[in-house]
């Protein structure tokens, strides 16, 4: 939202604020399947401070995406405790969760989830329009981001007309366009050329320096080096 964008960079928050932005206590997640209960996350205890840049790593099926969607407050069927800026997420209703998400979170989905019937520019515009931002301002932001990601030429194309990597770029651009305080990125560079991947990582680094808290999932050790801390997951358990 505008005030969030117009307020000065929030590096100070990271310094002055010692209380974590995210606190997970004994978080457990299981799916009920025909075979019975399958645990996907076990006893996750994790504190993430505002301003941190965290990398989650682990083999396929370890539960990384699951954890990320819990952090994004999309998923609420879990056990344990999750405080988001001191909000007890468990006790929030769907609406409040959605609002917290809308206020704070930008999300890069592993499967991109671009809207097929919207052009690239419109896909970028969507988060802004749901945040009731004025049209003129939105247009400026979209133009800015298109330019930053070097996809101005693609702005009127539909996702189906893009390559996988280009789709991923749009997905990342869409996640950061509303200037979220918390950026959750699920393998944001999986489909990209190394140079492009590095550019994204540089962008993340810059955003982080400007105060954005970032949690990324990646299989790339190089990408992991951009973060300050690595959380390793295996079969739902946190290592260490």
């Amino acid at each position, binding site marked *: 939202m505008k005030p969030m964008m117009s307020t000065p960079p929030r590096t100070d928050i990271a310094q002055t604020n010692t209380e974590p932005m995210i606190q997970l206590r004994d978080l457990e997640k299981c799916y009920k399947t025909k075979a019975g209960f399958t645990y996907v996350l076990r006893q996750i205890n994790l504190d993430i401070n505002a301003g941190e840049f965290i990398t989650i790593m682990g083999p396929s099926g370890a539960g990384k995406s699951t954890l990320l969607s819990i952090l994004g407050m999309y998923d609420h069927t879990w056990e344990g405790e999750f405080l988001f800026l001191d909000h007890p997420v468990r006790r929030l209703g769907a609406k409040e969760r*959605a609002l917290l998400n809308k206020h704070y979170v930008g999300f890069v989905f592993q499967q991109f989830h671009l809207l097929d019937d919207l052009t690239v520019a419109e896909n970028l515009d969507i988060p802004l329009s749901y945040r009731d931002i004025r049209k003129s301002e939105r247009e400026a932001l979209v133009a800015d981001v298109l330019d930053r990601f070097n996809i101005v030429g693609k702005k009127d194309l539909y996702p189906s007309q893009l390559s996988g990597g280009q789709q991923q770029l749009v997905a990342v651009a869409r996640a950061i366009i509303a200037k979220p305080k918390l950026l959750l990125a699920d393998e944001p560079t999986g489909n990209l050329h190394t140079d492009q991947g590095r550019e994204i990582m540089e962008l993340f680094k810059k955003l982080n320096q400007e105060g954005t808290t970032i949690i990324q999932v990646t299989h790339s050790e190089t990408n992991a080096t951009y973060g300050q801390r690595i959380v390793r997951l295996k079969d739902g358990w946190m290592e260490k």
Partner: protein
Amino acid sequence: MFFMKKLSSILHRLRSLGQRRTAKQEIDEELRFHIEQRTAENIAAGMTPEDAAREARKRFGNVQSVREECRETRGAGFGEATLQDIRFGLRMLRKNPGFTAVAVLTLALGIGANTAIFSLLNAILLRPLPLREPERLVWISNPIPGYGLPGLTRRSNLLDWRELTHSFESLGAYIGFADRISYTLTGRGEPKRLEGALVTGSFLATLGAAPGLGRGFLAEECQRNGPLAIILTDRFWRGQFQADAGIVGKYLTINNKSWTVVGVLPPSFDFSSTFIPGARSVDFLCPLRDVPGYENWGNMMAVVGRLKSGVTVAAAQAELDVLNAQLQKAHPERGMFGSQVMALRERIGGSFRRQFLVLAGAAATVLLIACANLSNLLLARAVARRKEMAVRVALGADRRRLIRQLLIESLLLSGLGALLGLPVAYLATNAFAQSQAFSIPLLQSARVDLPALSFTLLVAVAAALIFGMAPALQLSQATPEEGLRDAGRGTSSGRSRLRLRRGLIVSEVAMTCALLIAAGLLMRSFSRLLEVHLGFRPAQAAAWRIAPNRAFANHQEESAFYRELLDRVRALPGVESATLGATLPLELNDIVRVHLVGAPSPPANMPGIFLREVGGIDYFKTMGIPLRSGRDFGSHDAGSSPKAIVVNESLARTMWPGRDAVGQALVLEAPPDPPVDCRVIAVVGDVRQSALEQAAGPEMYMMDWGGRELIVRTSQALQATVPAVRAALREFNPGMATDEFKPLEQIIDRVTSPRRLVARLLALFSTLALLLAAVGIYGVLAGSVNQRTHEIGIRLALGSTRGAVMRLVLKEGMSLAFVGCFIGVLGALALNRAMQGLLFGVSPSDPLTIGLSALLLLGVATVACWLPARRAARVDPMVALRHE
């Protein structure tokens, strides 16, 4: 019922949407609460209040400014976001051209039909008469048949009412048999027969219908030897004089006399379609130049009144009842009479209320069925759109925003449907309005006007809400967690969606079934009506409206003229027989009273007797009325005394039960003239006189040379004889207009026209409904087969026969059809009371109609089920299994 429960929960949700505080307010409050709490904690930890508050605000962001920003942008955002939704909605419609075409087309038909019916209903029932303060206008009819025309009032009574009542500001009348007076316009090309309406001088003033051009009649023009004046109707003025405003003050030669055109009626006031729908339209009004001799005509005044302000219909009725009792005592020579006061608007069109309400109901049902179909299609598409919605929610869309977006898509569909439906409605309405075929009052004034357009808008919005709400609510429930995982497809919600879709199919089948039954009953009534034994043979016979347009020196000369005319026509090749008559059956007929010689008053239970004046020999032969006993009229019966009369079986039975009527004597009352002695020379079959639905009452025939109707029966095709007859007439009397010729079958058409209209429209609507229901069933089953391809593949792979697969699908569809049919039959039986008054010769629970309708519906449903079933049976198990 499941569907109803769903509906009420939808309605509940709709209400609560409006009432609930916005989520934004809630979260703001919550955030504020946290800030306050945090501040308190900070203070407890030893910070100064200012520091504590600053720290807390920092952690939670500046809520206040967020709120203000939101409020500031919302106003601007709403319209703009709506535009965005519209743009996206249009794109979605373009993207699915097949779906869009089907949806828009069905909606166009549904909305068009509703607009058309509304336009008719509005003209016939709702729209106030285009007259000054129309709510004060009343119609005063005479419920007691006496001497003259049924329902009308004699001159002396009108004069007394005018004099002695206090309820009315004014009373006026037109003459009920005005169409029996012939007018011929000459001096402007071919002689042209005109239709004139005789009205009292006060008629137009009473109605409050001021001429659009010129003036009303002056008092002197209503006097016996006053100047001859006429007022033209708008239609005639436009047709004959090309709307020449200079016509006022000019003279027209009518019946060889010179008449001044003093005015032209406004286009809004159509005398014919208001008072005498279906009859030949009136060309001009002329004042009844009141003379006491008119008293001899008996009941002839169709009386309208303008109530004084504040006077009710009931009060006027009560006053007239008292007055009539006194008048009857004081003037026994006027015979029996009464009066019945009703609102003029009720009299005009009121009798068609039930028909048009049924039609409106049918049109609404068709639209509802179309909506059910669309809802179904949208629900089917909703499966594919769940992911889109989930992503939108994940990106921050709130529920209201999604519902708005989805409803806008529905509104676009119905808007396009309305746009396309309007021309349909416009054409249909104009076709009905311009058609002279239906004797329904004010039908000709039906137009797709502003109220109709507003109605269309309303219907379009309502339709969009009806078909769009359930899918929108369902889709807007999308949550990110279920939609974002590609594999995650909630099976339970899928099942409830299927239940909703099946519920929709059942309800649309039920509605279709009820509609089919209603249409079936009306069509059967109609065909029953056509099977009615008329008592005469309309086929191969036609009537010419003739007017000699000349004066006769005496009665002999006149008789000779008509005798000669008949002889000439009869001599034409192809003419089997010809005769003359004053009126035709099923048109306005005179009513008289009779009594037996020596019994001074008619039997108390004796209804009025229809009197038909026969104008030449061979009448019964030409009309095809069977002679039961006695002999046909001969030339010598014209001036005979006692008057030779022919009675029908009904009258013979009433007057002389068990005896031969031929040779009996009868006295015909003709107040205020002395009674006439009559002798029965023959008994003929009964003829339906006033309506096909009504059994014939007592009838009698008298003969005198002359008449306005030349009736010709031909031995060859009717049309082939027409030119010869016209030529003969013109040669015989060049001044006679001969253009008006009508097959007798047309009379039947005219009296059955309202029923025909309703039956045909209902048949049309039920056909549409049937089609829509078939499409609906097909759509749901095809979708279900598509979804189950994998399952069907497994079944086939496991050894199921194709027949079994086909039966499986057929069973799924037909069970819905059967349940719907059953409910529809029950519904039709429950609604039969509304239909009762519209039916003729068939019971509302007629098992044949119900059975046939259900059978037709189930047959169509079978076809609709069979196509997807066949597709299911053709599934290649290998392909189906590989693709999942």
